[in-house]
């Protein structure tokens, strides 16, 4: 029997792996990948809550759809920023992005 707790723990593990990737990686594209993993785990949470706590309505699914839209917008703008930074600095290393630091 797979209960709600199993899905929530799976989502928690995925979220923490994504967080680790987003915090500990040098390459900005890898940071974006970590953020995508985090958004996915949030979606698993929303769909699991919808399935187990209120299966008669689709509110959780609509939330998940909105998260997917935001993730698409985020990855489009994020990658465009990374490409522009790469053109100016020839680097995607987040340690080198320190122009605001004196």
């Amino acid at each position, binding site marked *: *029997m*797979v209960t*709600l*707790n*199993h*899905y*929530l*723990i*799976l989502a*928690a593990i*995925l*979220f*923490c*792996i994504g*967080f*680790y*990737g987003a*915090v*500990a*990686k*040098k*390459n900005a*594209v*890898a940071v*974006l*990948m*970590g953020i*995508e*993993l985090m958004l*996915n785990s949030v*979606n698993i949470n929303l*769909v*699991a809550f919808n*399935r*187990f*706590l209120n*299966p*008669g*309505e689709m509110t959780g*699914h*609509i939330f*998940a*759809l*909105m998260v*997917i*839209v935001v993730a*698409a*917008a985020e*990855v*489009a*703008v994020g*990658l*465009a920023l*990374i*490409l*522009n930074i*790469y*053109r100016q600095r020839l680097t*995607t290393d987040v*340690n080198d992005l320190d122009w605001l630091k004196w």
Partner: protein
Amino acid sequence: MVSPLVFWIVAGITIIAALAVVNLTNLIHSALWLIVAFVGVAITYLILEAEFLAAVQIIVYAGAIAILIVFGVMLTRRGDIRESNLFNNYRLAGGLISLGLMATIVTMVVKTQWAIDVAAVPANSVGLLAQNLLGQFVIPFEIAAMLLLVALVGAIIIAKEVRD
């Protein structure tokens, strides 16, 4: 009801793929493992009887976002690709914090008493989704269009300088 074995296999594959995304040093390999993780999440949606979201997950994440990320990797490549995805100085701190976060979330999840509703999923779930989306949630629906428009225009403006 799905056999728990299927869930465990899918969850294991998804977690292994996510660990590979974070731990491999070749950025292209990370991007390909990311697709495996996305498909694993899509199968999790199938087990949760959310067929439409499973299709959306594969179409948008595995089909479009992963491709965009691969193009992003290809366009920003410099130096040896095999050493392109290294850890920064926060590896130990980040790992400890994420382990602590995981322990906290798991403890809270296990300790909470959920009000489980055992009702079945409605048969025409996509139709119900459309009724909600175009009825109660019509403002978020139109704002999603605005968000996509702004993201498209913004990304083109930012990336256009790269070409000139």
